[in-house]
């Protein structure tokens, strides 16, 4: 009778800690925001409503565009066979693993008004000015579609791979032609996958910050509006805006969840997926293959451009189409100048610290929820998942308000301006990632493995180290690597909470851009890209 009581106590402690991290700052912030003047200001100003509406329609349009690109691609790669299918299929999933900021600046260097292509056209056509300006809502949508089609692509492919070929054959045997099979069998079965992708795309673009920040110009969405208010020193207004954004996120999530339906495919278990059909006609096959490779190049071009720009020393590239000088000066500066090394070290240790704590909390949560089945297990699960449902800006502003006051009795401390606040913000964002990975793995872990270890004389810690963690490794590594990469490339929380001493790489990239140090910014981007790719590759290893 002693043990259960102890785990209930531990669960209560964990719930309090998670609530303090995840819920409490938002409550404090919302209370502060309830002050009437800020609310009145928000309600009466037209630009506030414009920004809120912009966030909503940009997110919806991003869902439509990403779906329009991702879904056909998924069918193409899952159902048809052509040379290079496997390699290309993996390559075009790449944009999702890179930090958004890196994608955005790569886009800037390629398609921006002084980017590679604009410049080439300008020289080739002898234009006075750049042929276009990459700014405003269309630029934001372009970047969103470019990076978020991957959600639709991956979800649809996963759904298609779970389709049982005999189900399609059954439909045909019952007299359904190809179109009827598609409409009456395939689409309904794919619905949960499609809705899942739509939710992810909607939430990601609602919280998207770097694209509107860099390409928005005068066009404001809610995330950039919030940061602008915060930088103007109007914290109460920023908090009102934050609450509005959070409400939109929650309402959007609830509405989309409604349409999700049950995941019937999971209930049915695994079938045998239809085998990809080789494309017979030579002309079409050549066309498909050519189009596939062109697409891959187009998708990878921004990152190649980033690499190219990172090799151009400061001031060396002015009006030429191709850079006249390429060398490693920028990288040398990155690693030899203390001022530039600092942000990299900052980002690395803060990401490592927040990931470690997030893993430990998720492990404790998994143990209490799955193994001890404590009474508070629903609360623990909800708290671990909650930060995912709200844009990063929401937590950044809430933390900025809550931890700028010293009131130890209310559990509020002055952390803003210290080295602790950014890791804390990253930690909040990391919890859903490590939590989901570890809880899912824990549920699949046969409890008799741990009992076997105990019956062989292994105590709790030895069982944890020798049996539990090795068995949880795939989910743990996947969650931890995603959390680490997200923290490493974070800009949303960083721009609100950084100080000069604790500035992370993303902030340094922005200030390099502002100083026209494009080469250094690109070099930072390349380093970020490489570290992220390596970490994710290690995390995905089976």
């Amino acid at each position, binding site marked *: *009778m002693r*043990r259960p009581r102890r785990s209930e106590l531990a669960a209560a402690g964990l719930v309090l800690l998670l609530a303090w991290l995840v819920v409490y700052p938002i409550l404090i912030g919302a209370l502060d925001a309830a002050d009437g003047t800020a609310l009145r200001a928000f309600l009466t100003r037209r630009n506030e409503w414009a920004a809120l509406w912009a966030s909503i329609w940009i997110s919806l349009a991003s869902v439509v565009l990403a779906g329009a690109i991702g879904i056909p691609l998924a069918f193409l790669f899952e159902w048809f066979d052509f040379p290079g299918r496997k390699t290309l299929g993996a390559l075009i999933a790449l944009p999702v693993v890179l930090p958004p900021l890196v994608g955005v600046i790569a886009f800037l260097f390629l398609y921006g008004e002084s980017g590679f292509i604009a410049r080439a056209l300008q020289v080739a056509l002898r234009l006075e000015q750049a042929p276009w300006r990459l700014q405003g809502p269309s630029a934001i949508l372009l970047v969103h579609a470019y990076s978020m089609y991957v959600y639709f692509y991956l979800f649809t492919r996963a759904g298609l791979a779970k389709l049982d070929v005999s189900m399609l054959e059954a439909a045909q045997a019952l007299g359904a032609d190809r179109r009827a099979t598609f409409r009456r069998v395939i689409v309904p079965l794919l619905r949960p996958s499609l809705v899942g992708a739509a939710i992810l795309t909607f939430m990601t673009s609602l919280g998207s910050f770097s694209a509107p920040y860099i390409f928005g110009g005068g066009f404001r969405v809610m995330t950039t509006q919030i940061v602008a208010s915060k930088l103007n020193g109007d914290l109460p207004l920023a908090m009102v805006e934050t609450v509005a954004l959070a409400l939109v996120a929650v309402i959007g999530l609830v509405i989309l969840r409604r349409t999700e339906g049950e995941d019937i495919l999971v209930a049915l278990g695994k079938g045998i997926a239809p085998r990809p059909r080789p494309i017979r006609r030579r002309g079409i096959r050549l066309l498909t293959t050519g189009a596939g490779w062109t697409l891959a190049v187009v998708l990878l071009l921004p990152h190649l451009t980033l690499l190219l720009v990172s090799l151009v020393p400061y001031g060396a590239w002015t009006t030429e189409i191709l850079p006249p000088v390429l060398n490693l000066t920028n990288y040398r500066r990155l690693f030899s100048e203390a001022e530039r090394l600092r942000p990299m070290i900052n980002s690395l240790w803060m990401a490592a610290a927040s990931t470690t704590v997030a893993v430990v909390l998720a492990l404790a949560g998994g143990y209490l929820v799955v193994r001890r089945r404590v009474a508070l297990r629903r609360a623990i699960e909800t708290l671990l998942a909650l930060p995912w449902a709200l844009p990063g800006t929401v937590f950044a502003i809430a933390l900025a308000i809550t931890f700028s006051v010293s009131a130890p009795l209310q559990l509020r401390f002055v952390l803003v301006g210290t080295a602790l606040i950014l890791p804390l913000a990253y930690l909040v964002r990391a919890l859903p990632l490590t939590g989901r990975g570890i809880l899912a793995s824990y549920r699949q872990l*046969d409890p*008799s*493995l741990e*009992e*076997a*270890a*105990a*019956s*062989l*004389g*292994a*105590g709790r810690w*030895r*069982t944890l180290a*020798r*049996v539990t963690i*090795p*068995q949880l*490794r795939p989910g743990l590594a996947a969650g931890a690597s995603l959390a680490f990469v997200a923290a490493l490339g974070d800009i949303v929380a960083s721009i609100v909470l950084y100080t000069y001493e604790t500035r992370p790489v993303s902030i340094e990239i922005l200030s390099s851009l502002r100083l026209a140090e494009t080469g250094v910014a690109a070099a930072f981007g390349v380093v970020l890209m490489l570290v992220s790719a390596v970490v994710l590759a290690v995390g995905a290893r089976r």
Partner: protein
Amino acid sequence: MTGFLRIDGIEKRWSHDVTVGPITLDIARGDILALLGPSGSGKTTILRLLAGFEAGDGGRILVANEDVSGLPPHRRRFGMVFQHYALFPHLDVGENVGFGLQGRGKGDEGRVRQQISEALALVDLAGFERRKVHELSGGQQQRVAVARALAPEPRVLLLDEPLSNLDPALRERTRRELRQVIKRVGITTLFVTHEQDEAFDLGDRIAVINQGRLEQSGAPEELYEKPANLFVATFVGRANVFRGEAARALCGSAPRGAIVVRPERLRFADGGLPGVVRERRYTGPAAFFTVEADTGDRFEVLAEPDAAQVGDRVFVQAARAISL
């Protein structure tokens, strides 16, 4: 007599009306006890209480007069073989078997290696150290699980349905080999099964569990010939139950309650209980005849395959009846 392993009134209350125990059992040193019962009878709960995976709501467990009830599983020194073996998939065979040997603080490595190879040799898997667990057949996995449980030299061995995952052809052979291994080591053993054959073949003694209670314990013969009640009589072996008129016709005298007669103790004769053969099931050396008596009772007679035909009118006598 006090046993090496004494189970003294242990019980587990899952809810108001689902209770296992109190159970009291003594097991002599080196004996093999089978916990036999239908699924859901609570036999696995008893095993888990012994292993320490469940906390009991009463009673004591004593090993060589030492009360281990308060000890956590890893201090009890009870070896356990799990139903699905629970081999660690991330470790190879040698590391699995060596798991309980390391971290006990007395390991120089050569000695641990020696013990691993001895344990594997015991189950006839010498030289399997570097194999991956998933490369083994079901029977080999079962033997690795036994070797792993025995390697740290536990005081008691617990087995949870150890043969249920094997196909029937393999099961019988494995059963004998398992008994040989246990007897060679001489370890006091408790195992759970729902199959009477397995309990008879592997156990020295059998404890019959039903609805969380101990119905009877004893040697196989004792349970078969002298069942304590109707449940034991019908669960252990085949049994025909007769009452009233039919019972009187079989035994001659009128019994007070029911009588139980095994199919092989019934024979066709010139007088006795009259009836008609309704069904004949041929098993090779013998056949089961389903007889419908004039009293309406249906029962089974085990006899020579050609003793009767379907539709024959017969009289049945009992060679030995158990009155309950």
